[in-house]
């Protein structure tokens, strides 16, 4: 595998992990990390709260416009082995941003990448899917089944 492909693969993997972690509570991530033998790491950027302007598109698919802002927390963590992880999440939970950053650093690590996917990301993804399936099933029950009333004799 060439380096570009490798880089793209890792980026896709990091993004997929972040997509799961952003939906989890800080406590859920922390609980998954509790049994994990974490390597030495330090805050590269202490958690910080700020705003991101959320954008929509005219007509849903046209030119972008500014819809309104959202609170966002972010942090960065560096492993002793050098990997730098970033954490971004909606809301103001700095600890959650830090935990996401830590996981992002672990995902990039040769030694811990597999374990963090298996012990942290995969179980959280499964929980998220269960919640989504439940919501989808509740929604599906409210779908209208039209039928035609037949009057008189055919």
């Amino acid at each position: 595998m060439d380096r570009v492909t490798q880089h793209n693969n890792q980026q896709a993997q990091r993004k997929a992990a972040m997509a799961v972690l952003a939906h989890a509570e800080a406590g859920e991530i922390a609980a998954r990390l509790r049994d994990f033998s974490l390597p030495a790491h330090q805050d590269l950027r202490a958690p910080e709260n700020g705003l991101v302007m959320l954008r929509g598109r005219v007509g849903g698919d046209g030119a972008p416009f500014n819809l309104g802002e959202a609170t966002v927390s972010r942090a960065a963590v560096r492993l002793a082995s050098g990997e730098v992880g970033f954490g971004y999440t909606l809301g103001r939970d700095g600890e959650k941003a830090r935990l996401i950053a830590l996981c992002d650093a672990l995902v990039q690590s040769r030694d811990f990448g597999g374990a963090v996917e298996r012990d942290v990301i995969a179980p959280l993804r499964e929980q998220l899917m269960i919640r989504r399936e439940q919501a989808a099933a509740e929604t599906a029950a409210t779908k209208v089944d039209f039928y035609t009333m037949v009057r008189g004799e055919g």
Partner: protein
Amino acid sequence: MYVAVKGGERAIENAHRLLAHKRRGDQSVPEVTLDQISEQLGLAVDRVMSEGSLYDRELAALAIKQARGDLIEAIFLVRAFRATLPRFGASEPVDTGAMRVRRRVSSTFKDIPGGQILGPTFDYTHRLLDPALAQGFVPEMPATADSSTAPTPRVTDILGRDGLIESSPQAEDGASVGDLTREPLNFPADRDLRLQNLARGDEGFLLAMGYSTQRGYGRNHPFAGEIRFGEVEVEFSAEDVGFAVPLGAIELTECQMVNQFKGSATEAPCFTRGYGLAFGQSERKTMSMALVDRALRARELGEEALAPAQDEEFVMSHSDNVQATGFVEHLKLPHYVDFQSELGLLRKLRKEFAEANAPDAMKEAAE
């Protein structure tokens, strides 16, 4: 004459103390929690987020609690709060086509791909007060059904395939996105600024404006092409990370209004459209927004613009309830000096009037 007014400090302090006491109400009644507000008064939270222009359920719930349920006051609090945080940047535009739909209805087509999905709605309720809700109500578990994975394309995309509806305007290369929180508003304003203004505009104002178009003040013959509510993913291109980072999901309501068609010697006739988008489940808001968005396109579409809803300066200058409440409510602050000068002028005018209209005898006597 300059009159210094002092002495209000203690009264103000005690008034705020009294307010805090009134806000808490009868202390033998349990205090309402932010979770309770967020979970059980969810649509109030949605409105405060939309018009406060800040997506944060917990902050909106706190604002509602602090404002004693006065939603415009809560919106004011949220707007003030957002000024305290730095802005990291702007998100990638959200894809409402990829929404995890919780509700989706169309009044234009019965059989839309993905179906008519009612979701949690007040529609078709009888609007009878329900005494069972007064205390200790435990709802039934929601029904469930096989959730199909059939995509739910936007109705406007379906119409667009056959060219029956105008396509959405695309951004020009390198065009920046207008932001009325950063630059003062100038007229005429582009559609991006108009939509931003409407998205944070007062629901009641937009409702009245949208309603006025239906009643004939700038009629544009609308159909609710589609209303959808659900979750969309948000991504943010963080420079330090080097790719678009998933931030999580937000709830949005989108309304696609399909309006009267236009055409010309060179262009085949097609439906026109108005657009509404807001945080949370905000159906009335997005429908009104879409009606007003379409009305404000009058000039662009070569229509006569005579009605208030078609006047962008009028609409955009009066839609913001924080600005409006600021100016209306400032009238109750001390205007003693202004008023004294008016009073002085009025007395002078009255004196002149009395003299001018005095009986001739008096005038003569005076001379």
